[in-house]
């Protein structure tokens, strides 16, 4: 057992190292371009630069939750119920919650600058908060007592239902008249009204955040695997103690 642990103990591989380097490069470009190269907004002034964090983090949170749902489906409907899917689902949800938190924080900072308030009871904001809470609930479900199998089954179901909230968040601006920015980029008609460099920087941000996401998930699911292995080693000792109880009496 300890052999297995040693062989698998580093959480990085050559691939993750490459991803890490690329991530750093892309993010560096986003920082430089976002803070220096891109112009101010006519209406919003300097505060528009928050967008390069706010919007990608929101989208990558969506992406993370979708990955969670897909991995959950993989576990649930796969013949072998491979635990790898479950670990990916969990890792992706954790990273997604982090990105969602970044969206909420940057959003409220931005709101303070544009609306003068950190928070408004606006549909987009409220639904985003609900999405965040939903995935906190998902993580809580993962922490419930029970076997790995139970954990995987329960959380898979929750994940596949929770992902349905994303369209609600996305279309909330349309469903209710909202203070929040409507779909400027991902709008149905497809014509984007935005300065070319701003748009490029925004998409660089999306690419960079995606890479961050991939890097984090790969490492996180690896640590989860190691925890599982360590737990099963603890179990051997516990089994020995338990058997001794029987011999003693």
């Amino acid at each position, binding site marked *: 057992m300890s052999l297995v642990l040693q062989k698998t103990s580093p959480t990085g591989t050559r691939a993750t190292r490459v991803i890490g380097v690329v991530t750093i490069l892309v993010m560096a470009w986003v920082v430089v371009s976002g803070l220096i190269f891109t112009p101010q907004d006519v209406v919003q002034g300097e505060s528009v630069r928050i967008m390069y964090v706010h919007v990608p983090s929101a989208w990558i949170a969506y992406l993370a939750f979708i990955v969670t749902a897909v991995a959950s489906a993989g576990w*649930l409907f796969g013949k072998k119920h491979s635990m790898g899917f479950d670990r990916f689902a969990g890792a992706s949800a954790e990273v997604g919650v982090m990105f969602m938190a970044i969206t909420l924080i940057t959003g409220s900072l931005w709101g303070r600058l544009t609306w003068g308030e950190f928070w408004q009871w606006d549909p987009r904001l*409220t*639904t985003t908060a*609900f*999405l965040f*809470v*939903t995935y*906190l*609930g998902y993580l*809580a*479900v993962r922490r*419930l*007592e*029970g076997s790995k199998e*139970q954990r995987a*089954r*329960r959380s898979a*179901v*929750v994940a*596949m*239902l929770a992902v*349905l*909230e994303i369209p*609600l968040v996305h279309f909330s601006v349309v*469903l*209710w008249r909202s203070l929040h920015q409507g779909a400027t980029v991902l709008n149905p008609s497809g014509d984007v009204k935005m300065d070319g460099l701003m748009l490029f920087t925004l998409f660089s941000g999306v690419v960079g955040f995606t890479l961050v996401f991939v890097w984090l998930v790969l490492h996180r699911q690896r640590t989860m695997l190691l925890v599982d292995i360590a737990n099963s080693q603890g179990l051997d000792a516990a089994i020995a103690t338990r058997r001794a109880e029987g011999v003693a009496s």
Partner: protein
Amino acid sequence: MKSVTKSKVISAVLLKDLRIELRSRVLTNQVLPFAGLVLVMFAFALDNDDVLQRVAGGLVWLATLFSLFIIVQRSFAVDTTDGALDSLRVAGVDLSAVFFGKAIALAVKLVALDVVLVCGALLLYRVDLNLNGLVLLVTCVICATTGLGFVGTLYGGLTAGAKGRETLLPLLLLPVVAPVLIAATRATEAAFGSGGAQTSEGWAWIGLLTVFAAVFGVGGSLAFGPLIDE
């Protein structure tokens, strides 16, 4: 053992849940006064017909939501106290049928509650209701309670199995039922004509409620079994 048809299981579970409610009267003696209080309190606190009419729809559904928590908890407490849920699992019955049975029972209770609440709101808040509005309102109540019945049963099942889980129910249920709350509120406002809303606006919301109910009906019937299995 003979195999049992799905509809037989549904009706057995439904009857059982309703009969227990009739015996223990949790809904009438415990939930209703509770929900009624919300309405009365507001009638007192905001002694202003304008505001009251505007919030009437929201209050009805807010009260429904609170009651949902209590009813769901109670509905599963009945099954878990003496290990009946374990027996159900071991009986090898089709758990999706159990899901539908419990969900329908829950929806029936919610409808009963909402009828009282809506009547209360009409009286206390002096809301006018025309025929179009009434049709919209009835549809809204049916769609919304069906959806709530499904989602309440699904998450109730998830949290009923083992210790420590029951405290998760509100956390899980809250964000999920929020859309129902909003949609049902808007539809009810349209039916009440609050703030000059048109009845026609309401029907769009009914669509959302229907989608919600359908999603959780299908999702629940598939997921309930695996979920209550610890």
